[in-house]
């Protein structure tokens, strides 16, 4: 009896003690209490309490401000250390918009590791600080971004014409001069977002004539027509997120959209990337990824060597510098569009989703860079990757000399059914204008026009039987026994056979393609005999019959 009483007493006391300790720990020993106790406002010490930012429209209740007090509503004046400090000036006041909308992480948690998502197996950790601009992608879509060379040219034009003398962009330029002048122009960091005066040049001109002195007379010079265009392109991309725009321009020059869709535009050979920024690190394999288990590392390694990170990946590795890999990672992380209530949908997103405005600039270089460069290379000379069929060189001068623009347009529009090249009008979601822009861009990088061809589209009358024998002994090694394509392109392809003229086919066989594995058969090579014009014609006749066999 006594033993049992003691057992009861001691166990109860012990349990009470432990629960008491847990309660004290839960309620009084939290880190945010310690941090808040150091906070001082103008009226003295701030009350220590759980603080949060609630924005029902965005579905946000963020307790981050329990530590980052001065970022909370009406607390800007709170001082007391780095953690409590106010947010650096940004367009969106965290006191109103909350924190997790941009930064990710767990808004309801009240402990650092939990809130930042730096715990094991956290599905949506906070974006790393150097990737912060990816957070903009939650709501925003940077529109009309050109590929990286174009963007670079536009940026250089802005610098070359010394606009930074008066204007400030992303924290640069607009210096204050000792004589009290400086900062004459407005900050243009968000010019595209806030909108800017389209007649700025005319007004600048007038002002430069009327103003008596100061920078107007010294600095401002008339601008040439092409430079004006570049400046316009530059201003269009100023959305107060320079890192993100640059990252996007790299994305648009790497050809990712050739196989991946983002918001309904792009090929469908690879996974849809529309919300790739929300990828759960717990759902991918880190077996071959060095460094810590964060998506940023996974993505970067995946860009370096796709097939070693994702076993069986058909993605050709892109020739990228480390800086560009970082930028691609940033952009991929920014693909995290959330459903928003109408009141919170920003203008750029309305333009993109409701009015079909493009995320990429509509010039040929950008469209080519965004959709074609992944396989055909930015220079159009085709690419080879281990384990993958060679991607054709589309800017090859021998090729461009023989094909009409109509052939190119048709090929892009309808693709190559059965191969990795989709039909870009229907499947890929490009417009006719964009396809035309790509075709003229091909002519630009290839630098070759079509040779005049007086012959009709079909003029070969030879018998296919002789051609079949020649094809089997000479062509099938690369193009496959039935012309289905192997190391070389597929020739039995219906779109190719429909659109290619007989001149194109005979001349391609005869001349070959310089810089590729295709030899010219007018003259003998160490491996193949020369073919006569009749032989070539019969091979073409055989090719034509392949199309009918499908």
């Amino acid at each position, binding site marked *: *009896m006594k*033993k*049992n*009483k003691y*057992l*009861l007493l001691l*166990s*109860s006391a*012990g*349990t009470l003690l*432990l*629960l008491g*300790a*847990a309660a004290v720990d*839960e309620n009084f020993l939290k880190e945010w209490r310690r941090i808040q106790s150091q906070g001082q406002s103008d009226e003295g010490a701030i009350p220590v309490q759980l603080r949060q930012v609630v924005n029902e429209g965005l579905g946000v209740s963020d307790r981050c401000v329990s530590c980052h007090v001065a970022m909370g509503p009406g607390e800007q004046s709170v001082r007391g250390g780095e953690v409590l400090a106010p947010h650096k000036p940004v367009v969106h006041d965290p006191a109103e918009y909350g924190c997790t909308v941009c930064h990710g992480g*767990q808004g*309801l*948690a*009240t*402990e650092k590791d*939990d809130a930042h998502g730096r*715990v*094991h*197996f*956290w*599905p949506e950790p906070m974006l790393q600080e150097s990737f912060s601009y990816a957070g903009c992608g939650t709501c925003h879509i940077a529109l009309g971004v050109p590929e990286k060379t174009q963007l670079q040219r536009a940026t250089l034009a802005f610098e070359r014409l010394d606009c930074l003398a008066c204007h400030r962009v992303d924290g640069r330029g607009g210096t204050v001069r000792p004589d009290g002048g400086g900062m004459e122009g407005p900050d243009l960091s968000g010019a595209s977002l806030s909108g800017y005066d389209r007649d700025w040049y005319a007004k600048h001109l007038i002002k430069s004539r009327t103003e008596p002195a100061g920078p107007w007379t010294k600095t401002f010079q008339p601008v040439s027509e092409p430079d004006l265009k570049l400046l316009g392109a530059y201003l269009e991309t100023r959305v107060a997120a320079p890192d993100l725009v640059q990252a996007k321009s790299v994305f648009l020059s790497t050809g990712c959209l050739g196989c991946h869709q983002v918001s309904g535009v792009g090929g469908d050979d690879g996974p849809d990337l529309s919300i790739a920024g929300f990828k*759960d*690190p*717990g*759902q991918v*394999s880190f*077996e071959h990824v060095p460094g810590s288990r964060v998506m940023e590392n996974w993505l970067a390694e995946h860009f370096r060597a796709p097939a070693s990170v994702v076993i069986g990946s058909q993605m050709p590795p892109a020739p990228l510098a480390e800086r560009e890999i970082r930028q691609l990672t940033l952009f991929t992380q920014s693909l995290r569009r959330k459903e928003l209530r109408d009141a919170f949908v920003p203008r750029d997103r309305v333009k993109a989703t409701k009015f079909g405005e493009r995320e990429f600039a509509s010039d040929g270089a950008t469209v080519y860079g965004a959709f074609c460069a992944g396989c055909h290379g930015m220079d159009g000379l085709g690419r080879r990757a281990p384990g993958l069929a060679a991607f054709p060189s589309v800017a090859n001068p021998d090729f461009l000399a023989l094909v009409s623009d109509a052939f190119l347009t048709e090929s892009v529009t309808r693709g190559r059914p059965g191969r990795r090249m989709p039909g870009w009008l229907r499947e890929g979601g490009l417009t006719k204008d964009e396809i035309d822009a790509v075709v003229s861009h091909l002519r630009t990088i290839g630098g070759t026009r079509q040779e005049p061809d007086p012959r009709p589209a079909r003029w070969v009358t030879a018998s296919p039987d002789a051609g079949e024998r020649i094809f089997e002994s000479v062509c099938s090694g690369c193009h496959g026994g039935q012309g289905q394509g192997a190391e070389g392109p597929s020739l039995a392809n219906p779109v190719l056979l429909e659109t290619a003229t007989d001149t194109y086919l005979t001349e391609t066989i005869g001349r070959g393609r310089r810089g590729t594995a295709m030899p010219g058969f007018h003259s003998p090579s160490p491996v193949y005999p020369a073919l006569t014009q009749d032989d070539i014609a019969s091979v073409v006749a055989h090719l034509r019959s392949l199309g009918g066999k499908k």
Partner: protein
Amino acid sequence: MTPVDAGGPALREFVENLKAVPRRLKETAFRTGPPVTDRTRSTFVFGNVFLHLHSVRTHRWSLRWTTTMGLGIMTFAAFLIALVTGVMLMFYYKPFPDVAYQSMKDIHFVVPTGRLIRNIHRWSANVMVIGVILHMARAFYTAAYRRPREYNWLIGIGLLVTTLGLSFTGYLLPWDQLAYWAITIGANIAQSPREVTDALNITDYFDPGGFQKLLLLGSDQVGAEALIRFYMLHVMILPLVLAALMAVHFWRIRKDGGLVRPPDADERLTKKRAEETYPVFTEAPAKTYHLAAIVRGRTPNVGRGPENTVPSMPHLFYAELGVLMFTLLICVALSLVSDAPLKELANPNVPENPAKAPWYFLGLQEMVSFSAFMGGIAIPAIVLLGLALIPYLDRETKGTGEWFGGPGGWPLVRLSLLFGLAVPVLLEAFAIRFGWLREWFPDIPQLIVTFINPATVLTAIYALYSIWCIRRYESARAGALGLFTCFLCGFLVLTIIGTYFRGPNWEFFWSPADWPQH
């Protein structure tokens, strides 16, 4: 204008009644007054719906710590703790794939005290599993299953199975990789009769394995249907079954004459502590034993004096509450030191390697690695059947109520411990070092491997050993002592091997540090 004190008699009575409310509330709630006399102590017990499963007086033998070590009450206490914390968790838990995982993350990282409550729930579940096994061992070694308690032993086996079922169904609910693949393993064990039907080529016509898996998962793989099934089983069906079985279990203790004790318990108690004998019946009995007279069998107080019994209130209740609080103390203490695991979201495309079942099934999984059907279905069924048959095969009386009582006694148990530990260790060592039939004769029919593998060999050796015990001591109890001890040892060894020494592809490793890195 009428002053209050000028009110009529009715109003005065009303005021009196109002004043008397607290006193009357107490009187009506505790109708028999404070439990200060033996009589009121008795009425306190049988007048209370929750306490009346107890008899009003408890034998002092039952209150000795060495009699039960409080294991049954500890298991019950763990159930109560799991029940309360489980209901708390249900406020936040959402049983749908992926959403379930999110809600677990919320419970773990956001909900105030959520992590502690979840930890307590998990630890109490483990205490319950350990408790139920130890309690069974106690009941076995004190021969408590013997007449008239045979049926209660069966109920106890039902409770064991239900407890394991509760723990197993709870395992899936977090919907993380750990849960997903553990349940996948469990479901495949349920499907393992296919090993035999496949070998006989009759799976197309007769597929009990596939049916069992379908019944369990509601689909051919772990998904939304499986989750809701496990959830319903975990929070509704199994707790109700368990509660019903427990009610019977407790009720039968009373009906079977209280806890088991040796026939000479009274003398032994009196010899030791004559001076401590509690005064019996401080007043004349107000009731006769009419009811007791119509109860058949040897109930404790029929035809015998009630010496050496004490009122259950408060003696037994102190003990029970003490164990309850002690269990709570253990659960809370463990919960503060060790967090319940929560891995990444379940991903059907990325199997865990090794995927391990909950720890108490790792012995099964170890046997399953030799043969799914034998390890997962046949041997467990044989074990359960054997356990259930014990009280009907051992009809002896010698040693009832004594630890390790009966022919053979502690020396036999000691020998069985050595034997029971040595055999599985040696067998496993042999199989790990030299392989088994499949490695020696790759083309051997599966049926042969199914019936001859380390697990079946182990079972057969244990059975033979038990028969040897029966012959050596000329006693079924001796056979049972040997077999049960061996069963506990085998369970222990296989569970430890499955837990600590099996790595990727269920290969043997001395420690997880040696696992191939990937």
